[in-house]
């Protein structure tokens, strides 16, 4: 693995195995190595079950690798545990999920305030910051007090993006962010995600949608847990 000064994420020999219900071992990610530059939108492309979500989860410390290493901004993610793992997820990365995963009992505003609250920020500051973020992603004040069930899918995903940005992470990990949206809304969400790179963030999107991949500065292509190619960028 090289030590390119622009490298933000370095993955080396990454393996993630699962044990199936038949007690056989399946490698969702099988010996993947790559380096990613910062401040770009990177797409991980491939068919369902190719391991792209697992790869994203490993980078985001939502799961632990079976073997190999992940280094994000100098942090050895694969070696984190307990409090340091939670802190990494709280400050370093922001997640955007296909099904939004907003807390249903909280309003849009409160959902965005939640990561700030977990960080111990004062309530007034949380509210100001959350309102700004919601405005930024296109949720106006009249809809900020609504609960997720009273928002459209596109709006919910915007709230989820605002939540991912709440603590100012350097990396946004989006797993099929448009998988549940119509094409028009999808385009807007992709534009929104792409715009985040202008703020100096790295956005990694796992998708099987070629249109989204087309907007990315770099595309990693996966199949059966392996990296089978890249396009428009360096690996």
């Amino acid at each position, binding site marked *: 693995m090289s030590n390119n000064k622009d490298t933000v994420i370095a993955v080396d020999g990454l393996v993630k195995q699962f044990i199936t219900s038949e007690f056989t071992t399946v490698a969702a990610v099988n010996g993947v190595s790559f380096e990613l530059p910062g401040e770009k939108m990177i797409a991980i492309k491939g068919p369902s079950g190719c391991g792209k*979500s*697992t790869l994203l*989860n490993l980078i*985001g410390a*939502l*799961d632990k690798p079976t073997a190999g290493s992940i280094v994000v901004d100098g942090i050895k993610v694969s070696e984190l545990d*307990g*409090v340091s793992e*939670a*802190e990494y*997820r*709280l*400050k370093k990365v*922001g*997640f955007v*999920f*296909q*099904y939004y*995963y*907003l*807390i249903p*009992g*909280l309003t849009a505003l*409160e959902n965005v*305030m*939640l*990561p700030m*609250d*977990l*960080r111990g920020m004062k*309530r007034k500051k*949380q509210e100001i910051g959350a309102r700004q973020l919601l405005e930024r992603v296109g949720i106006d004040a009249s809809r900020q007090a609504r609960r997720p069930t009273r928002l459209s899918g596109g709006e919910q995903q915007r709230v989820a993006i605002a*939540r*991912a940005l709440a*603590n100012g992470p350097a990396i946004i990990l989006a797993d099929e962010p448009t998988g549940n949206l119509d094409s028009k809304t999808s385009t807007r969400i992709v534009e929104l995600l792409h715009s985040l790179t202008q703020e100096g963030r790295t956005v990694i999107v796992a998708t099987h949608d070629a249109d989204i991949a087309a907007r990315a500065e770099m595309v990693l292509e996966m199949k059966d847990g392996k990296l089978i190619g890249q396009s428009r960028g360096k690996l």
Partner: protein
Amino acid sequence: MGTVRRSLRNLIRSPLRTGAIVTILSVSIGLALIMVTVHGATENQLGSIAQQIGTEITVQPAGRFGTMGGNGTLAQEDVDKLSDIPHVVSVQESVQTQYTGDGLQSAVEQGGPGGGSFPGGFRMGIIVMGLDTATENPALMGGGQMNITEGRYFTTGENNADVMVVGQALADKNSLSIGSTVGINGTSVQVIGIYDSGQVFGNNMLIMPVGTVQSLFNLGGVTSVTVQADDVNNVDAVVSSIRGIFATDVADVTTAQDMYQRINSSVANAQSASTIAMIAGFAVAAVVILFSVILMVRQRVKEIGILKAIGASNRQIELQLGGEALAMSVMAAIVGALITYALAQKVANLLVTSSGGGFGNPGGGGLFGGGVTNVAGVSVAVSPEVFLYALGIAIALAVVASIFPARYISRIKPAEVLRYE
């Protein structure tokens, strides 16, 4: 919004679930609190009964009842050994016999069929009682306490003096007053006091110092000894030691304990029942809150996964769930305390009644009659401290409820719970 705020919001979010859990918890906490209160009340009652039982032990010649029956007197040399028994604080000797002279007339006439004294009726004999000169406010045979209305009682130096105190009725019947003398077995005995015991039989007695009675009636010992133990718990040991001095064919040894046995066992049974119910109440409350939190955790696995994914630590999630458990416990504790105020006395009555009932004469009109409330009835005063107990229980339950799910929470992997919708 803070962990506490999130906890409370989550409770309001599911009012039905919260209401159901708080209701069940309230009942179990209420039960536990009622039992804590009843337990305390029964303990006080047992203490009170112990006081009532007293520490008196009576030793009399075997088969003797009052002035009748039995094998004469208890030998003085054996009586003298009683004060050396451990836990004995006092020994009061007395001797009783019957006046056999003809200088005095009994004040008690037992009516015949016509109701008059004669013919068909008879006069009750005059009882002569020899008492320890140091005895203060002595109890008299037939009931009642000696209340000097004229003159005085004996002084400690008069143990063999020819003096006596007579009952009011006997004095009236025989026109006796302070300074009068009565010839008894050839000795002139002076009246130094007149008393009123409030009892017909009690007022028909001649009271003299023990030594005087022994001398006048030629008695070599005493007819009754009242031994005082230092503590009700030592009565049995003292009785056992007395038995070592007086064999069963020589003396009868009685205590008040038998008389109170039923009341004591009734309240003791109620206390046992309240202890069991208290433990059951605590156990049910602990199980309810524990299962509630486990259920809460299992139902909200996805939410916990989301919280972890956005950076919540295990501790933050545990605190949030612990806060919810605490809030529910506190609500239940307040309701439980209010239930206690309303029901503690009723439950106590129920427990005492079902644990043996009262002790009384047939018809319930006697000293201990009229059901359990006179003596065995437990009076439950619910103090404001019950709220402190409730708060203590609530905190303890919340702690219990938070410990077990903690391990489960730490094992939840966000990638797994968020993998599938």
